[in-house]
């Protein structure tokens, strides 16, 4: 139950952080990605701020043997690059630029009453569902 409360708090604060930073406005995200045009560097400060805090806390977390409310850390340890990572990230990035939405800001915008984003979210769920089917059939056998 404590873990569920922490997860809720994380989602809630993350949401407010996205809203304050402007990440929930797709035109802001596209402006950040528009380096060949009218580039808006402001989200660079968002990314830098988020990475700065998390990098410090991650270092601190290594000093504790375990998280406060869980028996162990569930942090990915894999380091090798593979075609799935490279191909998936490229597809993801291309889709991200098209609308200016990625998963978290789209969910926040839906909560804020932005109705067109529901078309994005529904398609995103469809894409994830399609992945779960193809993954079982093709990718996992390798």
């Amino acid at each position, binding site marked *: 139950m404590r873990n569920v409360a922490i997860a*809720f708090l*994380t*989602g809630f604060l*993350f949401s*407010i*952080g*996205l809203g*304050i*930073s*402007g990440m929930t*406005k797709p*035109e802001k995200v596209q402006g950040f990605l528009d380096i*060949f*045009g009218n580039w808006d560097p402001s989200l660079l*400060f*968002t990314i*830098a*701020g*988020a990475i700065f*805090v*998390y990098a410090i*806390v991650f270092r601190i977390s290594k000093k504790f043997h375990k*998280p406060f409310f*869980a028996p162990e*850390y*569930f*942090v*990915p340890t894999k380091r090798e*690059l593979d075609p799935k*990572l*490279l*191909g*998936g*990230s490229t597809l*993801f*990035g*291309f*889709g*991200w*630029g098209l609308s*200016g939405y*990625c*998963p*978290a800001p789209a*969910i*926040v915008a*839906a*909560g*804020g*009453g*932005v109705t067109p984003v529901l*078309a994005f979210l529904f*398609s*995103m*769920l469809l*894409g*994830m569902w399609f*992945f*779960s089917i193809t993954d079982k059939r093709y*990718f996992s056998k390798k």
Partner: protein
Amino acid sequence: MIDTYFLPLLGGLLIGFAASLLLLFNGKIFGVSGIVGGVISPQKGETAWKIAALVGLILGGLLMGLLRFDAFSSLPAPPMPILVASGLLVGFGSRLGNGCTSGHGVCGVARYSPRSITATALFTVAGMLSVLLIRNFGW
């Protein structure tokens, strides 16, 4: 000035702080594509916290909407085919590549994970290319 630098930085610090809570208390990475994917394909004992995180995101958005906080676009949305294509690519690609802007871009890069740093570089460049295409050929 405040809008350009201070608020984006403040928001970023809060984003980092929020993701840190999940790491310090629950030992988990805050990766939203993985969280949504985990709700679609549930694993035992992993569903309740994922749903709670999503509810938190939605309620944060709801609160900002109700308070008329300037967080959401006032511009017309992209046309439906673009929203659908974007959603399909984001959904499929983030699951195939094991993460999105939150899991790879924030948590992974801050852990100096070679996979996440590569993923973040790739999806940023791919995003720049798709914006370049949109700007030149329109919707």
